[in-house]
Protein backbone atom coordinates (compact mmCIF):
# COMPACT_ATOMS: atom_id res chain seq x y z
CA UNK A 1 0.00 0.00 0.00
CA UNK A 2 1.51 3.29 -1.10
CA UNK A 3 0.97 6.31 1.07
CA UNK A 4 -0.34 8.85 -1.38
CA UNK A 5 -0.87 12.11 0.37
CA UNK A 6 -3.00 14.92 -0.96
CA UNK A 7 -1.91 18.50 -0.62
CA UNK A 8 -5.08 20.18 0.57
CA UNK A 9 -5.62 18.41 3.88
CA UNK A 10 -3.45 18.10 6.98
CA UNK A 11 -1.07 15.19 6.61
CA UNK A 12 -1.81 13.66 9.99
CA UNK A 13 -5.51 13.24 9.16
CA UNK A 14 -4.55 11.47 5.95
CA UNK A 15 -2.15 9.21 7.82
CA UNK A 16 -4.98 8.38 10.21
CA UNK A 17 -7.21 7.47 7.27
CA UNK A 18 -4.54 5.20 5.83
CA UNK A 19 -4.08 3.35 9.08
CA UNK A 20 -7.85 3.06 9.54
CA UNK A 21 -8.06 1.63 6.05
CA UNK A 22 -5.29 -0.79 6.97
CA UNK A 23 -7.31 -1.90 9.97
CA UNK A 24 -10.63 -2.44 8.20
CA UNK A 25 -9.04 -4.09 5.18
CA UNK A 26 -7.28 -6.60 7.40
CA UNK A 27 -3.78 -5.40 6.65
CA UNK A 28 -3.47 -4.85 10.37
CA UNK A 29 -5.35 -7.48 12.32
CA UNK A 30 -7.01 -6.93 15.72
CA UNK A 31 -4.35 -7.18 18.40
CA UNK A 32 -1.50 -6.83 15.92
CA UNK A 33 1.50 -4.81 16.93
CA UNK A 34 1.99 -1.69 14.84
CA UNK A 35 5.45 -0.86 13.50
CA UNK A 36 7.28 1.86 15.43
CA UNK A 37 6.54 5.51 14.79
CA UNK A 38 9.91 5.86 13.13
CA UNK A 39 9.39 2.91 10.79
CA UNK A 40 5.88 4.02 9.87
CA UNK A 41 7.13 7.56 9.26
CA UNK A 42 9.86 6.24 7.02
CA UNK A 43 7.41 4.06 5.13
CA UNK A 44 5.09 6.99 4.53
CA UNK A 45 8.01 9.39 3.94
CA UNK A 46 6.69 11.83 6.50
CA UNK A 47 8.03 13.54 9.57
CA UNK A 48 7.97 11.25 12.66
CA UNK A 49 6.28 14.05 14.64
CA UNK A 50 3.39 13.98 12.19
CA UNK A 51 3.08 10.19 12.41
CA UNK A 52 3.14 10.48 16.18
CA UNK A 53 0.29 12.96 16.03
CA UNK A 54 -1.77 10.66 13.79
CA UNK A 55 -1.24 7.69 16.11
CA UNK A 56 -2.05 9.74 19.20
CA UNK A 57 -5.33 10.72 17.59
CA UNK A 58 -6.14 7.08 16.70
CA UNK A 59 -5.34 6.19 20.26
CA UNK A 60 -7.74 8.84 21.51
CA UNK A 61 -10.42 7.28 19.29
CA UNK A 62 -9.60 3.86 20.70
CA UNK A 63 -8.49 2.37 17.37
CA UNK A 64 -5.04 1.60 18.74
CA UNK A 65 -3.73 1.28 22.26
CA UNK A 66 -0.34 1.54 23.84
CA UNK A 67 1.06 -1.12 26.05
CA UNK A 68 3.74 0.34 28.21
CA UNK A 69 7.22 -0.49 26.93
CA UNK A 70 6.06 -2.99 24.32
CA UNK A 71 4.54 -0.68 21.73
CA UNK A 72 1.29 0.14 20.02
CA UNK A 73 -1.37 -2.41 19.15
CA UNK A 74 -4.51 -2.50 17.03
CA UNK A 75 -7.76 -2.56 18.98
CA UNK A 76 -9.31 -5.94 19.65
CA UNK A 77 -12.78 -4.43 19.71
CA UNK A 78 -14.25 -6.11 16.60
CA UNK A 79 -17.45 -4.09 16.90
CA UNK A 80 -15.50 -0.87 16.67
CA UNK A 81 -13.75 -2.08 13.52
CA UNK A 82 -17.08 -3.11 11.97
CA UNK A 83 -18.60 0.28 12.83
CA UNK A 84 -15.64 2.02 11.28
CA UNK A 85 -15.95 -0.08 8.16
CA UNK A 86 -19.61 0.82 7.86
CA UNK A 87 -19.09 4.52 8.42
CA UNK A 88 -16.35 4.66 5.78
CA UNK A 89 -18.59 2.77 3.34
CA UNK A 90 -21.38 5.27 4.03
CA UNK A 91 -19.07 8.17 3.33
CA UNK A 92 -18.16 6.70 -0.03
CA UNK A 93 -21.79 6.06 -0.94
CA UNK A 94 -22.85 9.59 -0.04
CA UNK A 95 -20.01 10.99 -2.06
CA UNK A 96 -20.95 8.79 -4.99
CA UNK A 97 -24.60 9.86 -4.94
CA UNK A 98 -23.50 13.49 -4.81
CA UNK A 99 -21.30 13.06 -7.85
CA UNK A 100 -24.12 11.32 -9.72
CA UNK A 101 -26.47 14.14 -8.83
CA UNK A 102 -24.00 16.65 -10.24
CA UNK A 103 -23.97 14.85 -13.58
CA UNK A 104 -27.76 14.68 -13.62
CA UNK A 105 -28.92 11.36 -12.17
CA UNK A 106 -31.54 11.10 -9.45
CA UNK A 107 -31.02 8.62 -6.63
CA UNK A 108 -33.60 6.31 -8.21
CA UNK A 109 -31.89 6.42 -11.61
CA UNK A 110 -28.53 5.91 -10.00
CA UNK A 111 -29.72 2.80 -8.18
CA UNK A 112 -31.15 1.40 -11.41
CA UNK A 113 -27.84 1.99 -13.13
CA UNK A 114 -25.95 0.34 -10.31
CA UNK A 115 -28.12 -2.76 -10.55
CA UNK A 116 -27.66 -2.92 -14.29
CA UNK A 117 -23.89 -2.44 -14.10
CA UNK A 118 -23.53 -4.88 -11.23
CA UNK A 119 -24.99 -7.67 -13.40
CA UNK A 120 -22.36 -7.08 -16.05
CA UNK A 121 -19.50 -6.74 -13.63
CA UNK A 122 -17.48 -9.75 -12.68
CA UNK A 123 -15.35 -8.94 -9.70
Amino acid sequence: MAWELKSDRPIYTQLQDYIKLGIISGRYLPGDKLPSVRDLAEEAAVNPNTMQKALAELERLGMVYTQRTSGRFITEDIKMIEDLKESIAKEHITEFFETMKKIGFSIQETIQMIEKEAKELTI
Partner: protein
Amino acid sequence: MSPILECRNLSKKYGYKEALSGIDLSVERGRIVGLLGPNGSGKSTLIKLSNGLLTPTNGELIINNMPVGPETKKIVSYLPERTYLNNWMKVCDIIDFFADFYENFDKNKAYEMLKRLNINAKDRLKTMSKGTKEKVQLILVMSRQADLYLLDEPIGGVDPAARDYILNTIISNYNPDGTIIISTHLISDIEQILDDIIFIQNGTIVKTASVDDIRSQEGKSVDALFREVFRC
Protein backbone atom coordinates in the same frame (compact mmCIF):
# COMPACT_ATOMS: atom_id res chain seq x y z
CA MET B 1 11.99 24.16 27.26
CA SER B 2 13.63 27.24 25.83
CA PRO B 3 13.71 27.61 22.06
CA ILE B 4 16.75 26.25 20.25
CA LEU B 5 17.09 29.41 18.17
CA GLU B 6 15.93 32.92 18.92
CA CYS B 7 16.35 36.12 16.95
CA ARG B 8 15.68 39.46 18.57
CA ASN B 9 15.49 42.47 16.30
CA LEU B 10 18.14 40.85 14.12
CA SER B 11 19.49 42.88 11.21
CA LYS B 12 22.21 42.32 8.66
CA LYS B 13 23.42 44.88 6.17
CA TYR B 14 25.84 44.30 3.32
CA GLY B 15 27.06 47.85 2.75
CA TYR B 16 23.93 49.87 2.20
CA LYS B 17 21.87 46.81 1.27
CA GLU B 18 19.75 45.43 4.07
CA ALA B 19 19.53 41.62 3.87
CA LEU B 20 17.63 41.14 7.13
CA SER B 21 15.63 43.94 8.71
CA GLY B 22 15.00 43.56 12.41
CA ILE B 23 13.52 40.08 12.53
CA ASP B 24 12.09 38.44 15.64
CA LEU B 25 11.88 34.69 15.46
CA SER B 26 11.82 31.71 17.75
CA VAL B 27 12.32 28.08 16.68
CA GLU B 28 11.31 25.24 19.01
CA ARG B 29 13.22 22.05 19.72
CA GLY B 30 12.46 18.76 17.99
CA ARG B 31 10.93 20.31 14.90
CA ILE B 32 11.59 20.17 11.19
CA VAL B 33 11.21 23.69 9.92
CA GLY B 34 11.12 24.94 6.34
CA LEU B 35 12.74 28.32 5.77
CA LEU B 36 10.99 29.35 2.61
CA GLY B 37 11.28 32.44 0.50
CA PRO B 38 12.04 33.63 -3.00
CA ASN B 39 15.59 34.19 -4.23
CA GLY B 40 17.38 36.94 -2.36
CA SER B 41 14.90 36.97 0.52
CA GLY B 42 17.51 36.46 3.25
CA LYS B 43 17.37 32.68 3.80
CA SER B 44 21.09 32.05 3.47
CA THR B 45 21.94 35.19 5.42
CA LEU B 46 19.85 33.99 8.35
CA ILE B 47 21.49 30.58 8.20
CA LYS B 48 24.99 32.04 7.99
CA LEU B 49 24.30 34.28 10.96
CA SER B 50 23.11 31.24 12.91
CA ASN B 51 26.34 29.36 12.37
CA GLY B 52 28.62 32.33 12.92
CA LEU B 53 29.86 32.73 9.34
CA LEU B 54 28.40 36.23 9.45
CA THR B 55 27.96 38.60 12.36
CA PRO B 56 24.80 40.62 12.89
CA THR B 57 24.78 44.33 12.13
CA ASN B 58 22.20 44.78 14.87
CA GLY B 59 20.18 42.73 17.31
CA GLU B 60 20.76 39.35 18.89
CA LEU B 61 20.83 35.73 17.84
CA ILE B 62 20.68 33.17 20.61
CA ILE B 63 21.21 29.43 20.14
CA ASN B 64 20.54 27.08 23.03
CA ASN B 65 20.58 30.09 25.39
CA MET B 66 24.03 31.18 24.19
CA PRO B 67 25.20 33.84 21.78
CA VAL B 68 26.65 32.38 18.57
CA GLY B 69 30.26 31.32 19.15
CA PRO B 70 32.48 28.24 19.55
CA GLU B 71 30.08 26.71 22.06
CA THR B 72 27.11 26.92 19.71
CA LYS B 73 29.16 25.65 16.77
CA LYS B 74 29.56 22.40 18.69
CA ILE B 75 25.85 21.79 18.57
CA VAL B 76 25.06 23.21 15.14
CA SER B 77 25.56 21.10 12.05
CA TYR B 78 25.61 23.09 8.83
CA LEU B 79 25.13 22.07 5.23
CA PRO B 80 26.26 24.93 3.02
CA GLU B 81 24.82 25.73 -0.35
CA ARG B 82 28.16 25.11 -2.02
CA THR B 83 30.67 22.47 -1.19
CA TYR B 84 33.82 23.42 0.67
CA LEU B 85 35.37 19.94 0.70
CA ASN B 86 38.58 19.29 -1.16
CA ASN B 87 38.03 17.53 -4.43
CA TRP B 88 41.13 15.36 -4.18
CA MET B 89 40.06 13.80 -0.88
CA LYS B 90 38.59 10.35 -0.50
CA VAL B 91 35.28 10.06 1.34
CA CYS B 92 36.89 7.96 4.09
CA ASP B 93 39.55 10.67 4.62
CA ILE B 94 36.90 13.33 4.90
CA ILE B 95 35.09 11.17 7.44
CA ASP B 96 38.26 10.95 9.53
CA PHE B 97 38.66 14.68 9.18
CA PHE B 98 35.12 15.29 10.44
CA ALA B 99 35.56 12.81 13.29
CA ASP B 100 38.67 14.75 14.32
CA PHE B 101 36.89 18.04 14.09
CA TYR B 102 33.57 17.33 15.78
CA GLU B 103 33.28 15.32 18.95
CA ASN B 104 29.64 14.52 18.18
CA PHE B 105 30.44 12.98 14.80
CA ASP B 106 29.33 9.34 14.54
CA LYS B 107 31.60 7.49 12.10
CA ASN B 108 29.54 4.30 12.12
CA LYS B 109 26.46 6.22 11.16
CA ALA B 110 28.29 7.87 8.29
CA TYR B 111 29.50 4.53 6.91
CA GLU B 112 26.04 3.04 7.33
CA MET B 113 24.46 5.83 5.30
CA LEU B 114 27.15 5.62 2.62
CA LYS B 115 26.43 1.96 2.27
CA ARG B 116 22.70 2.56 1.99
CA LEU B 117 23.25 5.09 -0.74
CA ASN B 118 25.75 2.84 -2.52
CA ILE B 119 28.64 5.24 -2.24
CA ASN B 120 32.13 3.81 -2.08
CA ALA B 121 34.12 5.37 0.77
CA LYS B 122 37.35 4.87 -1.16
CA ASP B 123 36.21 7.10 -4.01
CA ARG B 124 37.63 10.56 -4.40
CA LEU B 125 35.18 13.45 -4.50
CA LYS B 126 36.41 14.62 -7.91
CA THR B 127 35.27 11.38 -9.52
CA MET B 128 31.72 11.90 -8.30
CA SER B 129 28.70 13.50 -9.94
CA LYS B 130 27.24 16.66 -8.46
CA GLY B 131 24.36 14.71 -6.96
CA THR B 132 26.63 12.15 -5.31
CA LYS B 133 28.78 14.92 -3.86
CA GLU B 134 25.68 16.49 -2.39
CA LYS B 135 24.73 13.16 -0.85
CA VAL B 136 28.19 12.78 0.70
CA GLN B 137 27.98 16.25 2.16
CA LEU B 138 24.55 15.59 3.60
CA ILE B 139 25.74 12.33 5.13
CA LEU B 140 28.58 14.19 6.85
CA VAL B 141 26.19 16.77 8.24
CA MET B 142 23.56 14.27 9.39
CA SER B 143 26.15 12.01 11.05
CA ARG B 144 26.66 14.55 13.78
CA GLN B 145 24.50 14.29 16.91
CA ALA B 146 23.63 17.97 16.76
CA ASP B 147 20.90 20.01 18.42
CA LEU B 148 20.38 22.18 15.38
CA TYR B 149 20.88 21.21 11.76
CA LEU B 150 20.98 24.02 9.23
CA LEU B 151 20.49 22.71 5.72
CA ASP B 152 20.85 25.31 2.99
CA GLU B 153 19.26 24.01 -0.21
CA PRO B 154 19.95 20.32 0.48
CA ILE B 155 18.09 18.92 -2.50
CA GLY B 156 18.80 21.45 -5.23
CA GLY B 157 21.18 19.43 -7.36
CA VAL B 158 19.74 15.94 -7.29
CA ASP B 159 17.10 14.15 -9.33
CA PRO B 160 13.61 13.54 -7.89
CA ALA B 161 14.30 9.91 -6.96
CA ALA B 162 17.47 10.85 -5.12
CA ARG B 163 15.54 13.70 -3.54
CA ASP B 164 13.13 11.24 -1.95
CA TYR B 165 16.07 9.23 -0.75
CA ILE B 166 17.72 12.26 0.77
CA LEU B 167 14.53 13.33 2.53
CA ASN B 168 14.28 9.84 3.86
CA THR B 169 17.86 10.05 5.09
CA ILE B 170 17.00 13.28 6.84
CA ILE B 171 13.92 12.00 8.64
CA SER B 172 15.36 8.64 9.57
CA ASN B 173 18.71 9.89 10.80
CA TYR B 174 18.16 13.05 12.68
CA ASN B 175 18.23 13.07 16.40
CA PRO B 176 14.58 13.37 17.53
CA ASP B 177 15.35 16.09 20.07
CA GLY B 178 17.17 18.07 17.42
CA THR B 179 15.71 20.72 15.19
CA ILE B 180 16.27 20.87 11.46
CA ILE B 181 15.95 24.09 9.52
CA ILE B 182 15.79 23.49 5.77
CA SER B 183 15.98 26.36 3.37
CA THR B 184 14.66 25.66 -0.08
CA HIS B 185 12.32 26.77 -2.79
CA LEU B 186 11.47 23.19 -3.78
CA ILE B 187 8.55 23.29 -1.39
CA SER B 188 6.30 20.59 -2.74
CA ASP B 189 9.16 18.10 -2.44
CA ILE B 190 9.79 18.67 1.24
CA GLU B 191 6.36 19.67 2.40
CA GLN B 192 5.42 16.32 3.86
CA ILE B 193 8.36 16.17 6.20
CA LEU B 194 7.94 19.67 7.64
CA ASP B 195 6.35 20.54 10.99
CA ASP B 196 6.51 24.29 10.63
CA ILE B 197 7.26 26.89 8.02
CA ILE B 198 8.82 30.32 8.05
CA PHE B 199 8.06 32.53 5.08
CA ILE B 200 10.70 35.16 4.53
CA GLN B 201 10.69 37.97 2.00
CA ASN B 202 12.89 41.04 1.53
CA GLY B 203 14.60 40.35 4.83
CA THR B 204 11.46 40.21 6.93
CA ILE B 205 9.46 37.30 8.30
CA VAL B 206 6.13 37.29 6.54
CA LYS B 207 4.54 34.29 8.24
CA THR B 208 5.31 31.48 10.65
CA ALA B 209 2.87 28.60 11.02
CA SER B 210 2.58 24.87 11.33
CA VAL B 211 1.98 22.94 8.12
CA ASP B 212 -1.11 21.29 9.60
CA ASP B 213 -2.61 24.68 10.46
CA ILE B 214 -2.01 25.99 6.96
CA ARG B 215 -3.64 22.96 5.43
CA SER B 216 -6.65 22.91 7.72
CA GLN B 217 -7.21 26.68 7.82
CA GLU B 218 -6.40 27.57 4.24
CA GLY B 219 -7.39 24.24 2.68
CA LYS B 220 -4.31 24.28 0.54
CA SER B 221 -0.74 23.08 0.52
CA VAL B 222 2.20 25.16 1.68
CA ASP B 223 3.38 25.15 -1.92
CA ALA B 224 0.09 26.68 -3.09
CA LEU B 225 0.14 29.22 -0.26
CA PHE B 226 3.72 30.15 -1.12
CA ARG B 227 2.78 30.81 -4.72
CA GLU B 228 -0.06 33.01 -3.52
CA VAL B 229 1.95 34.99 -0.96
CA PHE B 230 4.95 35.50 -3.21
CA ARG B 231 3.12 35.99 -6.52
CA CYS B 232 5.35 38.00 -8.82
